[in-house]
């Protein structure tokens, strides 16, 4: 049962999309440019109604494609506006070229991204192939377990992006969060506005007293330094995310971190997962704990910047870990989150846990407590040595033959 944790908070029943739109209303960016795509459409649809009703002062640009949505958002941000967009799947894919330009030019755009499978075959349901495909674009990526987190993450993202000078996306799992009604605590407009503060860009195109050239051609003599600075900005962003989370907790009472450790400190077996499946896995952990099984969970909230050292530390004592990926990288080897985690462990000199990789839930395929129990059972066997850990990707709930 959700309780208000903020004295002036209000409990409302809203879907993920509704609550993300609500956060956008409270943030009231100067410009939103967007193009519809299931399951993210509602967010910008609701927001455009706010604009039509004069509830927000924002300008809404109903562009003719996602490529132009990101281009216009980039233009608006470079011009000195607080700029936002929202998309999913094919939309994010069509933005790919511009995602790199947003980060390369260090524009603090915030995007509401609803995770959805990538074509082909066309599928509108939830998996994380879209944002995993954009993982190297230089965007901060924050994943939400439920609608409450989506709302809180959007508010935090605004400050994070502006402080880090990096575009930031907040994701919700398609349909599972975007269309599922939950009880969410929202905060008063004035308090959200006070938390995010005024946006005062250092340099912007519309400042005609200080005209400047942005997006110039950068040859062998400068490009590398600029890309290095971008990579450094992503490294520095970790502390910015943490600082904003601390402030958020102080203000609104909800605690956030790069990752969430659930019953992990004394766990012998653990699952590492991103997004809404963490909620399902928590139910399983509770059941197993009642039976005296030392199961734990690591929920990765901030995927970019990747909390490599923190994850290595959190998992160092665990005997067997299952990394659950809701995307396949088709690398011929492992899925994306697994590769990141194994690299983190190895680089930190942590060799204790056996780590296995499960790909699940592609195209919205069901993942339920039964499947997750199965994974923990396998981890028990691997931990006790009765089963050897598989060194290849395992697929959950798929018809292989």
């Amino acid at each position, binding site marked *: 049962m959700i309780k208000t944790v903020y004295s002036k908070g209000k409990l409302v029943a809203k879907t993920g999309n509704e609550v993300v739109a609500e956060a956008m209303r409270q943030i009231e960016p100067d410009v939103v440019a967007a193009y519809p795509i299931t399951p993210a459409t509602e967010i910008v649809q609701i927001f455009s109604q706010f604009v039509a009703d004069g509830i927000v002062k924002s300008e809404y*640009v109903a*562009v003719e494609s996602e*490529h*132009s949505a990101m*281009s*216009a958002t*980039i233009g608006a941000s*470079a*011009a000195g506006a607080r700029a936002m967009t929202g998309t999913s799947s094919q939309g994010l894919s069509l933005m790919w070229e511009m995602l790199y330009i947003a980060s390369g030019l260090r524009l603090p755009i915030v995007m509401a991204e609803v995770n959805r499978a990538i074509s082909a075959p066309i599928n509108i349901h939830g998996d994380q192939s879209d944002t995993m495909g954009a993982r190297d674009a230089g965007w901060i990526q924050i994943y939400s377990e439920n609608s409450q987190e989506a709302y809180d993450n959007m508010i935090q993202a605004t400050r994070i992006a502006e402080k880090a000078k990096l575009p930031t996306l907040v994701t919700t799992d398609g349909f599972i969060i975007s269309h599922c009604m939950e009880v969410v605590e929202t905060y008063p407009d004035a308090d959200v506005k006070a938390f995010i503060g005024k946006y005062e860009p250092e340099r912007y195109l519309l400042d005609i007293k200080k005209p400047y050239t942005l997006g110039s051609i950068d040859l062998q003599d400068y490009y590398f330094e600029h890309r290095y600075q971008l990579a450094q900005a992503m490294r520095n962003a970790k502390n910015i995310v943490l600082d904003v989370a601390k402030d958020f907790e102080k203000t609104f009472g909800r605690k956030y971190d790069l990752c969430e450790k659930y019953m992990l400190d004394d766990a012998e077996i653990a699952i590492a997962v991103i997004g809404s499946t963490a909620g399902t896995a928590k139910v399983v952990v509770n059941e197993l704990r009642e039976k005296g099984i030392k199961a734990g969970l690591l929920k990765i909230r901030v995927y970019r910047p990747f909390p490599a050292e923190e994850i290595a530390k959190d998992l160092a004592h665990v005997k067997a870990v299952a990394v659950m990926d809701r995307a396949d990288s088709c690398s011929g080897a492992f899925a994306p989150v697994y590769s990141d985690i194994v690299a983190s462990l190895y680089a930190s000199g942590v060799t204790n846990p056996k780590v296995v990789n499960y790909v699940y839930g592609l195209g919205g395929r069901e993942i339920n407590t039964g499947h997750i129990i199965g994974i923990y059972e396998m981890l028990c066997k691997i931990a006790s040595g009765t089963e050897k850990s598989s060194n290849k990707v395992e697929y959950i709930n798929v018809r292989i033959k």
Partner: protein
Amino acid sequence: MANLKELSKNPERLTGGHRLCAGCGAGIVARQTLIAAGSTPVVITNATGCLEVSTTVFPYTAWKDSFFHSAFENSAATCSGIETAYRSLKAQGKIKDDIRFITFGGDGGTYDIGLQSLSGAMERGHRMLYICYNNEAYMNTGIQRSGATPKGAHTTTAPAGKVRQGKEQNKKDLTQIMIAHDIPYVAQAYVGNWNDFITKVQKALAVDGPSFINILTPCRLGWAYKPEDTMLISRLAVETCVWPSFEVENGVYKINVIPKEKKPVIEFLKLQGRFKHLFRSDNAHILETIQKGVDEKWDLLQRRSAVGCRA
């Protein structure tokens, strides 16, 4: 009509020292556009292409105004975002100045890959002037054919060879496509007549909505002529009616430059290396079809503008 004496007082807003080829028409277009803007503050966006890469080699810039480049196909969409930010910040009282927005795109970034974003921006009605500096090919990547390349021209992806004689298709009539958007101001112009072009830029900047100017912009490298002939060749395009200078204000056509004597198309073609192969006797029929195509288009334009015909 622009007044030269008045214009000479306007500041130079594109500096020398950019790296465009000697004789490049694109630099002339950019410079005259900004002279036309006078002292009005502008923010410039530019599609990837010769103009952009030659004027912004980091850490230098040839632009005295704010200049933004994001990618190749989206300069109109990018400008939409800037113009929208301007309206938002202005309404909130955060910006006081009256600013205009100008986008430059080559023909590749305008006729082909950027057509969707251009069309979207015009349809949405952003107050911006889009100028296509039309050198009739992708010059920056080495003279490949574009939708603006005329029939018979040799390019590196539509080369003249043993069995093919350069580009086989006609050029796309983008100006008509823009007119079909029912925007307040559309024009064709050409390098080599500063007065015609500058007047058009001033008209375009004055309209409260989107405007589009398609300016034929010789490229000495891609068209293969002597750098000092840029103006001459450009004027020949108008005198032969290959590229008529006209405008459409709120749907009403007007031809701006009517040649005293309509010259044969070969006068325009013969000075350029890209048409060299057409002057072989076995290609005479191609020259004939080019002339026929030009005549038909010119007749149509005259009929459209005769009685102030509406689009």
